[in-house]
């Protein structure tokens, strides 16, 4: 098997194989997401997270089969349908996020054109190599996310006699849903690139990318789950069903397993149509792009004069603070890499916000504040602060850092203060405002105001915690990706976050109605924030700003040095001295 694979691969053109390997490394932004720039390891870790989800679903399936069939057939149907919808939605969300993270990677960029055009390689070879690389990543995600649940659920749903049919229907549906979504994204990108001038396309592409992020997250969190035939057949729901691909593929799965009610056949029909259009659209747009835009890219002028209407730029404190805040804002806004990593965290923030909005908008009457609401807002705050803190160390241009070093005319603590202000402006303030918007109209204002004060203090505390030992200017220090184990950090962070929010929210709930306890909580949080601020300020006084992250030394020195005046019986004593360490 291995030998025949090797023979098959060796038959492929050499240029294709070289390009495929190169593009595989570039499907996902290496600098942004890799671990020690080692793509197989990164992909392995990414697959590990997906496999974890798959195992959770498998566990769910076995719990269901062990607990016996639920009492009534309609309850059973509701459970099965909601599960099927959630599995398909989750698959589409994962593929959607991959499409967003690998945005533009399948289309020829300026670098590809300039490097590969002079070489004797046809555009079709480049296209095939890129498609294969992207396909490999998407395929790996589909397999990883369903590796356990893709066998457990068909077994539970179809039983042993129908396992084969359910299993093949399951895998086909998942593959089709993924293919549909990825191709739909490519079609939109491709035709936008073809129809618009390249300069406008590049600006629009960034907006489209963030829009796609919002759409996928929003759809996942906001789309309702229909659990009985009456809901599916209700004409009021037809518009949502007709426009939401997860329902189409739910219908397709049931069609393939033979359990689709005839009333829903139109949805399965939409899935087939959608899949066909998406694949044809993607193929056409890609071929046209490779044949057309490669030439267009070479011919376009390097520099197009840009007119800017507004000359005013806001001030955010001192000159230094303004410089660093504007630099940070522009780095986030203009660097795809930074935008995408931050968008990952903010998509979770907005996901929670969307689900809050849904629950807030449903009843008309004012409702008292609830622990779930408090919990959500705290989680949003932590995610935003952690997200921004995780983006800060990613450098934007290491070579250009000399200018910051040559102009370093202020003490380090002023740079740290500017970084703190970035945290407060770009993470704490947006979440605080979002919470205020989502709650002031639907909850008693006095309770909301009390919570907003606590949330502001919590935001300040989180921001200060995130700055402990961070003696850098955002986006300027070299990055050692190997220092962070993404899987460990992700799960560790998720667990700490949930425990924190679960334990704090009920406590805050009790405190909100009692002025004395509320004042006490404010004092505690205020003292914590001020204490952390003082600690960071004091540490920053003696800190040296650094622009290069150094790896931990391979050999650990004991720091023993000889002091000439120390001797016992004529023999010198080794005196330990503090070795300077850098976080």
């Amino acid at each position, binding site marked *: 098997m291995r030998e025949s694979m090797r023979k098959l691969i060796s038959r492929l053109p050499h240029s294709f194989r070289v390009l495929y390997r190169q593009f595989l490394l570039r499907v996902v932004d290496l600098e942004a997401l890799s671990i020690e720039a080692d793509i197989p390891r990164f992909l392995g870790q990414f697959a590990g997270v997906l496999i974890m989800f798959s195992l959770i679903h498998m566990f769910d399936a076995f719990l269901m089969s062990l607990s016996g069939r639920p009492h009534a057939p309609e309850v059973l149907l509701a459970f099965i349908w909601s599960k099927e919808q959630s599995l398909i939605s989750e698959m589409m969300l994962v593929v959607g996020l991959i499409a967003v993270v690998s945005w533009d990677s399948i289309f020829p960029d300026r670098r590809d054109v300039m490097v590969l055009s002079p070489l004797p390689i046809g555009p079709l070879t480049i296209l095939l190599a890129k498609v294969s690389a992207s396909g490999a990543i998407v395929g790996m995600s589909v397999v990883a996310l369903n590796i356990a649940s893709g066998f457990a659920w068909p077994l539970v749903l179809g039983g042993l006699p129908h396992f084969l049919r359910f299993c093949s229907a399951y895998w086909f549906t998942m593959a089709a849903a993924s293919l549909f979504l990825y191709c739909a994204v490519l079609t939109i990108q491709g035709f936008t690139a073809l129809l618009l001038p390249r300069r406008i396309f590049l600006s629009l592409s960034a907006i489209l990318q963030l829009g796609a992020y919002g759409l996928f997250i929003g759809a996942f969190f906001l789309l309702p789950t229909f659990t009985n035939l009456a809901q599916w057949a209700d004409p009021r729901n037809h518009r949502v069903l007709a426009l939401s691909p997860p329902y189409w593929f739910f219908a397709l799965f049931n069609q393939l397993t033979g359990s689709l009610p005839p009333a829903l056949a139109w949805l399965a029909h939409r899935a087939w149509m959608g899949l066909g259009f998406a694949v044809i659209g993607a193929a056409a747009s890609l071929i046209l792009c490779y044949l057309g835009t490669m030439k267009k890219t070479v011919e376009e002028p*390097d*520099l*197009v*004069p*840009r*007119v*800017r209407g507004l000359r005013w*730029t806001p001030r955010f404190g*001192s*000159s*230094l603070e*303004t*410089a660093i805040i*504007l*630099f940070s804002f*522009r*780095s986030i806004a*203009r*660097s795809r890499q930074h935008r995408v990593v931050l968008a990952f965290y903010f998509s979770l923030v907005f996901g929670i916000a969307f689900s809050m909005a849904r629950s807030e908008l449903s009843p008309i009457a004012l409702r008292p504040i609830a622990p779930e609401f408090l919990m959500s807002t705290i989680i949003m705050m932590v995610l935003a602060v952690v997200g921004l803190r995780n983006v800060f160390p990613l450098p*934007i*241009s290491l*070579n*250009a850092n*000399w*200018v*910051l*070093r*040559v*102009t*370093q*005319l*202020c003490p380090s603590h002023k740079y740290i203060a500017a970084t703190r202000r970035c945290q407060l402006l770009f993470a704490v303030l947006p979440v605080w405002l979002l919470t205020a918007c989502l709650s002031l109209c639907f909850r008693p204002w006095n309770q909301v105001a009390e919570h907003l004060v606590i949330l502001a203090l919590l935001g300040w505390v989180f921001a200060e915690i995130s700055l402990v030992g961070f003696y850098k200017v955002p986006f300027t220090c070299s990055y050692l990706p190997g220092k962070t184990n993404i899987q460990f950090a992700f799960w560790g962070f998720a667990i700490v976050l949930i425990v924190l929010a679960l334990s704090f929210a009920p406590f805050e709930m009790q405190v909100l109605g009692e002025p004395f306890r509320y004042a006490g909580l404010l004092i505690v949080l205020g003292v914590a924030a001020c204490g952390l601020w003082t600690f960071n300020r004091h540490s920053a006084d003696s800190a040296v700003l650094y622009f290069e992250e150094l790896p931990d030394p391979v050999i650990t020195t004991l720091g023993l040095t000889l002091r000439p005046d120390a001797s016992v019986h004529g023999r010198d004593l080794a005196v330990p001295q503090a070795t300077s360490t850098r976080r």
Partner: protein
Amino acid sequence: MLELRNVSKHFAGIPAVDDVSFCARPGEVTGYLGPNGSGKTTTMKMITGLIEMTFGHILFEGNPIQDDLIAYKRRMGYVPEEPYLYTHLSGTEYLTMVSQLRNLPQRESSKQIDGLLRLLSLHDDRHASISGYSKGMRQKILIAAALLHNPDLVLLDEPFSGLDVGSALVLRSLIQELAARGKVVLFSSHELDTVERVCTRVVILHRGKLVADDSIAHLRSLMELPTLEAIFSQLAVEQDTDSMARQIADLIHA
């Protein structure tokens, strides 16, 4: 006056700059010459404070620069060898950031930036991203950023790189004008013709060691050579250039 006393820099024990001493005086343009890898840029980086020297002292107006590095940096302007810039910013944004980092008054510096961009023919592209700028345009941004705060010490590491003929002529005159206004100008370049026209004196480095430090006229008469190029070839170029060119052509032909 900028003075280097027995300055050395070792990388992993290997000397890149070895016991170099010279002075650059106000009102003079000091040329700093040497073949590739001779240690010019390393010296420049030590003078800017970007890297620390292994041995020796660098003094500005009689004070070691490390004693008050911040005060020293306030008075220094630096154009690095490579035009490394934050390319996601526009020309105006970059210069504004530099002026803010130097804590220059906002109103005055924005007028200065506008004027500099106009004089350097970058005004039309001031709002375009630096990523689209040519090498010469980037070089002009670097020159503007180095001069924005009216420094007393100007360090120019190959400032003519990528500039068109007109801009190079302007820069040549500018260097002389800055020196005439009493600034210390240390200028490194491979363009010996320009160096010969602009510099009052030259310092030549070879394999990290100083091999000449004198006025060009004195060097000419001392070595009995007609041009700076001939002096430089004798002091710092080891190989037979014609023979090397033949060898390269032979190699690719084979």
